[in-house]
Each structure stands twice: as structure tokens, then as C-alpha cells.
């Protein structure tokens, strides 16, 4: 090491020490700023902050915005709010809870149901929140509690807005309901950054329109700065930022039509979806049985919840949106159109139906023993000839069928504006490969294609998809995403935002081809399987009946009376009207209803009658006796 190196090292050392000194200065200055800040807060401003801390307990009170009102297309209220008093307990401040509730029960009537509901709320929430023990107190009860309130720390009467569904069970599946915010909702709100806006809010939309339009319906939370005394009583309001009320929704649904449709089902289970084919607006959206959404508003009690969940009719299941069923013969018009578009059949080509289609050593039978004789495409739809479609499906092959059906959204969501839509199953070779595990089960067999042709086999679609596809035929290939909400109305300034019909696609069908299918569907109503149900109608309609097998009867003849109720066939009917300028397209499904012509078509008749002529039905369609075959 020579001299200059040592010198160099010394210079480096010196430079480093200079930097260390600068760093130390940096640290001192910044810590100094901190200490200055602390001194400012803790000495100079101490008085102010001390007051703020004393007032703090409710210095910022969130003001929950009123939730938007939901109307039908004619202005009928489907969901609104009313103000009522609730008795609320903050468990962490109330002392021994059981004792507290027992003492409360001596002044105010508290039912076992109230207790059960409260217990469930306790389990679902953190204990420092205030929870309602009894809702909708009357004035006398409020007065009685007020006189005794000193005995009940942690218990208070609050005025709150309640959601109410004036029509009860009607349209419950489409309107949905609100319920208390649970842990999962909290997490979702936190993830989306909306949590602050829910301060003070206990409820959130759970299903249906209430859920999918939550952000419009909720509004913006306001707040109030309130000065309070040591006892916690508010003395004066320092500042108030009012909440912005939630926006109102105007649905495209006609609630009268909805009600007629629901009544038409009587006690039967099933679903009906009616769509305006010209814009995708949903006119009726039925899933039977329904439930009373009012049960959920105050937090449902475990007994009612259990009843709903264990009911074998599954009232909570939205059949129109989530139930998937084989379409049966209602699949035939779509098959026919696919055949024409793909040049697999001409409309005039005639086959001879002997009642049996033999394929690979298996006999596929027609409904009519002995067959329908000479059948062209028109007749195949009008009389619902199975053999015609067994043979057609075999000619087209599964790939051509699934390619064509996919363009009509079979097997994929329609994009309706509520959550939870099922996509159903559009069978194809690829679908089967993905669905099954072993090579033997993954393989597509040509025999399977044959039953696909009459809407059986792996085919499974929702009533919504069927209505959507029917609307496409009615509208000659112009498709819209179905939607339930027509306008969003700003409650403050009344500005309307139209939920624009979302055109989905225009299917490039040849006019002659779609006309053939439309003509045949009119034939169904005029002279075919739908004729009886539509006798004397004041308009022309087009439709197709369907009966979907729930399980396959090996060899034995199907007999409605001899089959257990839950294994009976599902009845289908799809239709649109007026035939020349369709204003409504619908699909009806009656679960285990038997023949489509007898069980489903009369329901459609009542709905179409009311929508097009204003005629009110005399009795539920399900009670009308009919013996037509499919």
C-alpha cells in the first residue's frame, strides 16, 4: 500500500463521514418535523382535539340513504320503503342478554319468533353492533319503552326505513329481496371499495333485481357531525351532508301480466318467461312456487328459513333462471330451421313415418302408433312428428346441430340483467369430452344424436333460454339480450336513464327459411297440437308444444296416472303473437305437468289473451281440463 492509496482511502473515509453527517442531519430534521407536529397536535391544538375526542362517540353519524323504489312498467310499486320504529339491543352494552330480553318482554310483547331471529342475527354479526329485537313498534310501545328506557342500557328505539314488497309472493324471484349484510357481503364490498358507503347500512340486495342493481338502488350515504353531552344525548348538529337517495327502477315487467301468469299455474310448479321480441324487455318472469320476500327484510327467523329450504317444491329455486330441462318437442322448430339453413332438408321433402325409426339395432318410436304417414316439414311441426326429427338429426349430425343451436344462445347465458343464470347444456362432441372422465364415456355415439333431434338426451335449457330463442324466431333472427329493467330514474332530479335494449346479434337466416318455420308454428295453433288450447283466440299466434321425459321408460308405455308425480313428464309450450307482428314471445314450463298441449299451452293462452286483448281469465289454466296429445 503506497502513500497515495492511503491518502485516497482517507479521502474516501472523509467523504463517507460527510455523508453520514448529512444522513444524521436528515434524520434529525425529519424527526424534528415529527416532534413539531406532535407538539402542534398535543399542545397547541390539544384543547380542540380533547373536545373532539369527548364528542367523538357520535361525532360522525352516517345517514343511510333511502333505497330506490322499484316499479313495474305501468308505475305499480313492487318494492318500497316505509319508516318504522325498531327496538334495538347492542349486546356488548346490554349486560346479561337473556335477562335483558326477559325484562324487555315485560313491557313490550316479544314473540319466540323475535327471539329466534335475534339469536340468529347475533350469530351472524359482531357483538358491538346494535341489532333489532323487535321491528315495527307502534306508538304505544314506543312510549312504554321510553318511560322505562333508563333500566335498559344498550337498548334503544330507532326510526328506520324498512323495505316492503306490497305484492308479497308475486314476482318474488325477479324482484328478489334484501337481507342483512353478512361477512361475505362485507368482503365483497371491501374488495370493490364500496364499504365506506355502507356505513350505517344493515341491508343489501340478495337476489334478483334487488341484488343486480344494488349500486343504483343503494344511493350515497350522508353524514352528520353531532355534538353530544356526557350522557350521549345529541345537543346540536354541527354540519350535515345529506344522503343521496338510491335511484328508482322501472321494470319492463307488466305486473298484472305477471300476476295472471302466476295465477294460471295454480298449484303447479314451473316457470314462464315472456319477452318483448322487439327489444328484449322481459314482460313476465315467473318461477312457481314463489316465496314472500318480506320474510327476509328484518332478518329471517330460523323456522321460516328452514321451512323454505326443506320444502320439497323448492320455492327458493328460481326455475326460470336456473332450472334446466330437456326442451322436448319445442326443440323441433329450431331443428327445422337449422336443417333449412344448412341445406340438410328442403321444406317440401317428404318422409314416410311408419311410427318407428330404426337406428343401430334400436327402434326409436313415435308417439303415434303406426306413425303419421307422409310428413313434410310443415306437418312435422304441426303434428310434432318424432320420426321426422330422428332422421333429420341423424342426417345433420351432432356437430351441425350444436353449431346452429349455439347461435341461438342454447347452452350459454342469455345475458339477462340478474345474477345466477344457468347456461344449461347444449350437447356436442366437445361438451361430452369435457363432461366425462373415461374414454368410453367421453365418446359421442351416433345413436345419441337421434334423441337430441326431439329435444331429449343431454339437452337441458332454462325456460329463459327457450323464451329467448322463441323471441329470435318471432323477430326473424334479430336477437336482444333480455332485460328486466327499462329505466333507472334519479330520485332527486327525476332524470331517466333508459337501459337501452342491447342488440345481441342479427342471425343471417334466409327469409324463406324463417318464414317456413314461422308458418309451421302458426299451423300448430291453427290445426295442430296447440289448436284446442287456442280455439277462438282473437289474434293469430304461433307456437309449439313439448313434453319432456324426465326419465326413460324402458319399453313400458307411459301413463300419467301410473307414474309417480316427480317422475312425470315436464310440459312445455313456446309461443309468440300476433303472428304477423309479434309483441310477445314466451316459454312455459310446467314441471311434471304431463302433456305440453294440455298443461302448458292453456297457461300461455291466458297470458297472451290478457297481454293482447286485456281479457282476464276466469279460472287458473291448470284447472282447465284438456286431453290433447303432444
Amino acid at each position, binding site marked *: 500500500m503506497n502513500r497515495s492509496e492511503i491518502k485516497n482511502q482517507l479521502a474516501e473515509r472523509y467523504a463517507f463521514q460527510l455523508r453520514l453527517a448529512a444522513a444524521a442531519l436528515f434524520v434529525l430534521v425529519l424527526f424534528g418535523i415529527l416532534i413539531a407536529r*406532535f407538539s402542534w397536535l398535543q399542545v397547541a391544538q*390539544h384543547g380542540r382535539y380533547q373536545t373532539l375526542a369527548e364528542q367523538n362517540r357520535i361525532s360522525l353519524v352516517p345517514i343511510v340513504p333511502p333505497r330506490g323504489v322499484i316499479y313495474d312498467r305501468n308505475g305499480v310499486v313492487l318494492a318500497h320503503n316505509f319508516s318504522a320504529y325498531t327496538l334495538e339491543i347492542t349486546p356488548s352494552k346490554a349486560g346479561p342478554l337473556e335477562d335483558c330480553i326477559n325484562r324487555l318482554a315485560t313491557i313490550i310483547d316479544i314473540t319466540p319468533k323475535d327471539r329466534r331471529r335475534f339469536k340468529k342475527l347475533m350469530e351472524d354479526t359482531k357483538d358491538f353492533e346494535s341489532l333489532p329485537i323487535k321491528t315495527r313498534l307502534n306508538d304505544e310501545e314506543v312510549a312504554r319503552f321510553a318511560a322505562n328506557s333508563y333500566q335498559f342500557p344498550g337498548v334503544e328505539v330507532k326510526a328506520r326505513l324498512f323495505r316492503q314488497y306490497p305484492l308479497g309472493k308475486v314476482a318474488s324471484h325477479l324482484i328478489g329481496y334484501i337481507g342483512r349484510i353478512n361477512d361475505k357481503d362485507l368482503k365483497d364490498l371491501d*374488495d370493490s371499495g364500496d364499504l365506506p358507503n355502507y356505513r350505517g347500512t344493515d341491508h343489501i340486495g340478495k337476489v334478483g333485481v334487488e341484488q343486480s342493481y344494488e349500486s343504483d338502488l343503494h344511493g350515497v350515504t350522508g353524514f352528520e357531525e353531532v355534538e353530544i353531552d356526557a350522557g350521549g344525548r345529541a345537543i346540536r348538529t354541527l354540519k350535515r351532508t345529506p344522503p343521496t337517495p338510491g335511484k328508482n327502477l322501472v321494470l319492463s315487467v307488466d305486473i298484472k301480466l305477471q300476476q295472471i301468469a302466476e295465477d294460471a299455474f295454480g298449484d303447479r310448479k314451473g316457470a314462464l318467461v315472456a319477452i318483448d321480441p322487439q327489444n328484449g324487455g322481459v314482460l313476465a318472469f315467473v318461477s312457481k312456487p314463489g316465496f314472500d320476500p318480506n320474510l327476509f327484510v328484518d332478518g329471517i327467523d330460523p323456522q321460516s328459513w328452514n321451512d323454505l329450504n326443506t320444502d320439497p317444491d323448492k320455492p327458493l329455486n328460481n326455475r326460470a333462471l336456473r332450472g334446466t330441462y330437456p326442451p322436448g318437442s319445442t326443440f323441433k322448430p329450431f331443428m327445422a330451421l337449422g336443417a333449412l339453413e344448412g341445406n340438410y332438408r328442403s321444406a317440401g321433402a317428404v318422409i314416410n313415418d311408419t311410427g318407428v325409426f330404426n337406428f343401430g339395432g334400436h327402434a326409436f318410436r313415435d308417439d303415434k302408433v303406426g306413425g303419421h304417414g307422409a310428413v313434410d316439414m310443415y306437418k312435422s311441426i304441426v303434428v310434432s312428428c318424432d320420426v321426422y326429427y330422428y332422421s333429420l338429426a341423424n342426417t345433420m349430425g351432432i356437430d351441425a346441430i350444436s353449431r346452429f343451436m349455439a347461435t341461438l344462445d342454447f347452452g350459454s347465458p342469455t345475458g339477462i340483467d340478474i345474477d345466477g343464470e344457468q347456461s344449461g347444456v347444449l350437447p356436442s362432441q366437445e361438451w361430452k369430452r369435457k363432461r366425462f372422465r373415461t374414454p368410453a364415456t367421453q365418446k359421442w355415439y351416433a345413436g345419441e344424436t337421434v334423441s337430441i333431434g326431439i329435444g331429449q338426451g343431454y339437452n337441458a335449457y332454462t325456460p329463459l333460454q327457450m323464451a329467448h330463442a322463441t323471441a329470435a324466431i318471432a323477430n326473424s333472427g334479430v336477437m336482444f339480450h333480455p332485460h328486466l329493467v327499462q329505466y333507472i330514474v334519479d330520485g332527486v332530479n327525476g332524470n331517466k336513464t333508459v337501459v337501452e335494449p342491447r342488440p345481441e346479434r342479427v342471425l343471417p337466416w334466409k327469409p324463406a327459411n324463417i318464414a317456413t318455420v314461422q308458418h309451421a308454428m302458426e299451423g300448430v295453433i291453427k290445426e295442430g297440437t296447440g289448436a284446442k288450447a287456442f280455439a277462438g283466440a282473437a289474434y293469430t299466434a304461433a307456437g309449439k308444444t313439448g313434453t319432456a321425459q324426465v326419465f326413460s321408460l324402458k319399453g313400458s308405455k307411459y301413463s300419467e296416472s301410473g307414474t309417480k308425480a316427480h317422475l312425470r313428464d315436464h310440459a312445455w309450450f313456446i309461443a309468440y303473437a300476433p303472428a304477423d307482428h309479434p309483441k310477445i314471445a314466451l316459454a312455459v314450463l310446467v314441471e311434471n305437468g304431463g302433456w305440453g298441449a294440455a298443461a302448458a299451452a292453456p297457461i300461455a293462452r291466458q297470458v297472451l289473451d290478457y297481454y293482447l286483448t286485456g281479457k282476464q281469465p276466469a279460472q287458473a289454466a291448470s284447472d282447465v281440463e284438456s286431453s290433447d296429445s303432444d
Partner: protein
Amino acid sequence: MIKDFLRRFVRPIDPWLLLFTFLVFLLSCIVLYSASNQDMDKISDKFTFLGVALCVMWALASMPLQVLMRLALPMYVFGVLLLIAVALFGSSSHGAKRWLNIGVTKIQPSELMKLALPLMLAWYFHHFEATLNWKHFIVAAVLMVVPVGLIMKQPDLGTSLLIAAAGFYVLFFAGLSWKLIGLMVMAGGGLAYVVTHWNLCIHILREYQCQRVATMLDPMQDPLGAGYHIIQGTIAIGSGGLLGKGWLNGTQTHLDFIPERTTDFIFAVFGEEFGLVGNIVLVLLYLMLIVRGLTIANNAATLFGRLLAGALTLTFFTYAFVNMGMVSGILPVVGVPLPLVSYGGTSMVSLMAAFGILMSVGKDRKLMKA
């Protein structure tokens, strides 16, 4: 025999660092007991973290500095690879990809980078000590930008800025030109100006980050949301006054007004219950730790040791400053724990690891003299 073993065991430990750490730890237990509503489980957790952290510290302290030097490059490369893996296959939570799922547990590679980047840069400058010129600073800047950029993309602005700061401190001690530093400070000021002007801000940062800055400038803009933390934290500290409301007597704390009061916002509890005097004591303890760290840097035998000790010490300072600054409302809210005080194992272990490295640097000097 036992004496000999003990001596060998104790030798790598720097008594000053350990003493001040223990004092801060003690304060931490006292305030945590109050903040957690007398939850002894949390205190015992805290002791478990300390135990683990002490072992890590001791292990690093006993490790010869040459070993650390050899580890610098592999650690850095490994860290960067992990960050790339996170970008490719990381698991998301709350919209950010920060974690790597390795079967048993999820790891957050940005934690490793907090040590790996200063180590790497110190090693790099040490390696080229004889020929050091401006080009090396450019390479160093690149070495720094790669991980910082990857972390920023996760997105984790807070952590990436803190790691950038750690890297910058190495450059600073290695002799980064004062002119450049001046320029950077001015650029930083300019950026801050832009950021505080809402409309321009959106183009540079993500919306929620702008929101945080805007909220800091005016917490009442969003008093129930993002501003809530700041308002309540400031009220807690301000109402503490000169001597504080006394241990376990903080009304803000015990009436649930302080969010995250055992973790990032624990300083609000401390400030409320122990007042300005308490705050000054805590700041002085931190200052003592920093002074000790800078002293070790000053006495270090090699450039590697000097740079590493200096940078780690200033990084420690940065954590303390950013946390106290954010809780008292002069910095935007970023998720930075209060060093050694906030409840949480990861931060404790990584801080004590840094102290272990400082001790190793200090010990290195002793060996050279001997």
C-alpha cells in the same frame, strides 16, 4: 468451559442495539396490552415473535461479513426471480398480486427484497471500489429499478417506494453526486406538486392512490371512508396532550375509534395514552438505535460494511418516520408498521434480521483490529 461458550455466544451481539431494542419492545408490550383490550394472547404472540426474531438476529450477527457478501448476488437474483414468478403465477387478493403460493404457505417476495436490494448494491459498489465511476451508478440504478418496478406493478406502491428508498441510501453513501441528489429532490417536489393537483394525478397513479393523497390533504372529503383513519388518528394523538390520558385510559382507543389499532395505527394509541412526553421518549429511543447504526457504519472496515450499515439504518428510520407521519396526518396512509411496536411477526423478524446484519458489520471491525 461454560464461560467460554457464553462468551462465544454473546460476542457477536452489540449490547447497545440490543438494549434499545429491548426498551422499545417493552414499550410495545405495554401499549399492545392496552390496544388489544388486555389480550394476553397477543402479548405472548409478541414474545414468540421476539424469540424467533432474536434467533434470526443472532444467526446473522454470528455470520462473518464475507459470507453475507457471498450471499448478496444469489439472494438478489433469487428475489428478482421470485418477483417475476409472482407477476406470472402469483395469487391475487384485493386486486393485487403480491403472493406466491408454495403449497404449504403463501410468501411475499417483496419482503425478501427489503434486505436483498441493499445487500446487492453494497456488494456491487464494494466489488468495483477501486474503479468506481459514474457508470457504476447507472448500473446500480438499473439493479434497483428492476425489483422496484416489479413490486410497483403488483401494485404495491408503499413497499416499492420503501425498497427504492433502501436502494437509494446505498447509492447515497456510495457517493452519488450531490447535484444529482439535488435534482432528484426537486423532481420529487415537482411530482408531489403534480400529485396534489388532482386532475394530473389520475394519469400517474391509480385512482385509489390519488384518493389517499387527496384525503390526506383534506380528510373531511371522505370522513366515513379513507379520511376516517386520519381523522380519528389525529384526534387520538391531539387529545393525548402533554402527558397523555394514561395507560389503559385512551377513550379513542377503548371506544373502538382507532382502526387497526394493534397494527399500523398502534402509534395513535401510544400518543393518546402517553402524550407528547411518551412520543418524544419513543422518538429518542428510535434515534438512539439510528445513532448506534450510523456509528457502526462509520467504524466499518470495508466499503461493503459501511454502505450496508448506513443504508439499513436509514431504512429503519424511514419506516419509523413514515408510520408516525401517516398516523399523525402528515403523510398519506400507506401500510407500514411501526418498527418493533406494531403487532405482527414478519416485520419484527425482518427488522431484527437487519439489526443482525448491523451487528455482523460491527463485529467485522473488531476482528480487523484484533
